[in-house]
């Protein structure tokens, strides 16, 4: 699995601080993990990961924070929570993955497609208060340069009355924008 050798060296203070911030936000402790691999065995997306869940935890245990936050795995995780439900040591792996995605995002490290989808989704919520599915898909396709992705599904969706012509808007749209602004201001455990 490991393509390059890892240089083991004492964990630096900044790495230690980052790990404890991740643990705090995720509400879990990586030191509980004894590397049994039950999380990886049950992970439905492990087949596509560079570091399966157990190895992501191992990277953190060894202080390899950069490698962990660069792992493609954290963006392949579908948040299905199977790992957390099954961990015999009670490590909340799914929450840790979630926390790592957010930490990676803040550092500008991300899976472009997943991040584009999330951005399109949240800009819908910020502007309209609700998600407008058709607009979301169009925006996602435009920003990722996949113009014709799922094109064949657009017309059948409309024929079935499953696409609104206009986005649904709530009355409290100004309130929504403020919620986003204040969350950005007060948020961040760092």
């Amino acid at each position, binding site marked *: 699995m490991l393509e390059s050798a890892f240089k083991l060296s004492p964990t630096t203070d900044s790495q230690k601080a980052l790990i404890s911030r991740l643990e705090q936000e995720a509400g879990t402790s990586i030191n509980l993990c004894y590397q049994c691999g039950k999380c990886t065995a049950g992970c439905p997306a492990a087949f596509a990961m560079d570091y399966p869940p157990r190895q992501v935890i191992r990277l953190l245990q060894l202080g390899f924070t950069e490698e962990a936050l660069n792992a493609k795995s954290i963006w392949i995780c579908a948040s299905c929570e199977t790992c957390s439900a099954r961990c015999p040591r009670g490590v909340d792996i799914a929450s840790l993955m979630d926390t790592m995605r957010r930490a990676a995002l803040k550092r500008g490290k991300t899976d472009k497609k997943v991040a584009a989808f999330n951005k399109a989704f949240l800009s819908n919520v910020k502007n309209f208060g609700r998600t407008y599915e058709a607009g979301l898909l169009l925006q996602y396709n435009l920003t990722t340069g996949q113009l014709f992705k799922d094109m064949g599904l657009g017309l059948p969706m409309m024929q079935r009355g499953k696409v609104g012509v206009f986005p649904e808007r709530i009355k409290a749209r100004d309130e929504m924008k403020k*919620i986003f602004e204040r969350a950005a201001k007060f948020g961040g455990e760092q």
Partner: protein
Amino acid sequence: MKYAYYPGCSADGSGIEYGMSMERTAKILGFQLQELEDWNCCGATSGHNTDKLLSLALPARNLAIAEKTGFNMIIAPCAACYNRFRTAEHAVQHDPEMKKKIEQVLDMELQGSTETLSILDVLVNKIGTEAITAKVKSPLTTMKAASYYGCLLVRPVEHTGFDDPEDPQTMDKVMKALGADAVEWSHKTECCGAAMVTARPDVGMRMLYRVLKDAKESGAECLVTACPLCMLNLDMRQAAVEKQFGEKFNLPIYYVTELLAIASGDAPQTVGIEKHFVEAGKYLDTVKIRAAEAKITAEKAAEEAAAKAQAKAAAAKAAKEKAAPTGEAGVKAKAAAPSADAGAQPDQKKVDAFVTALTKNPDKMAAKLVADPAQAGVLASILDEKKIGKLAGLMARDMELAKKAAAAFVQQELKRQGECQD
């Protein structure tokens, strides 16, 4: 009962049938849904992937609205909305620091008094399967349904908690209450790929394929869901999965609420069955025909059993001659009948001895034929001349055959008792 209702963004779009059938379900079962005023999107996965505080504040605004309008219980049919609401409730109730932050972001106060419910929780634990069965007009007899729970209805268990995270049963119970067969399968809580099917189809499509494949291989003829994203993936993208993996599934997908409404007498169009991508109307017709056939078969069997009981007295004297069974009426007895023709004529003395033994010591002999003591008791209680004659004939020839026939008699009787109770 009146609940606050949070339809979620998909109820007017991709999950329009869920919204339609949810409202029908409430009407049929007699509970009221009051839509939350000016509700907003829960943020779903994109929210918690991006910012923790925002991901809690978005659903919490809806909780605050519910509290303000005097509701404690909120129904959120969408599994993702339900899960985000539960997560926010958990934070508000158990994390005072986080609660304060959320209140700051919202500029609203939170009591932490709400409880968000999934539709499965409401159906099984608030209304109860007996009340559902009472509304059924055309039962889904012979429907082979795989109940698909997916992730967010049952995990994480600290937030959801109304069912088992590995082998949940609530949806299976509802399906049985509607008359369907609940197929046992291993992928009922495996992830369908969720948003990954759209964002990263290279990963998501395989996850989707595995769920469909396991359902098919387990003998399911359709899948039932309580999540609009699972529906979107399983239904709308099934054709693409079939193409990519070179395998045909033809599995119609239903919302549990659609089937509840249809079994309670609604026309399929009322809940939007024609809006599905995988043709879903024909299978409902097939089930209807098979259910009618099963009903006729059951009625016939009951008539024949009644005729048999009448003939019992007349047959008493002829019992000895009828030692070798021919053309029995009961369905179960029929299964054992063909092998009876295959053997040679049994020794008449042996047959007589068994007849005597069965007549004098029914309990002891029944225990020899049926291992389970309770079932042996049942057998002993229903032994009449005709059954004794038949069993004696078989015992003289082949003990295994006699045991099979005895088991069939017990099953027939247990079924009859079950029907009487119904």
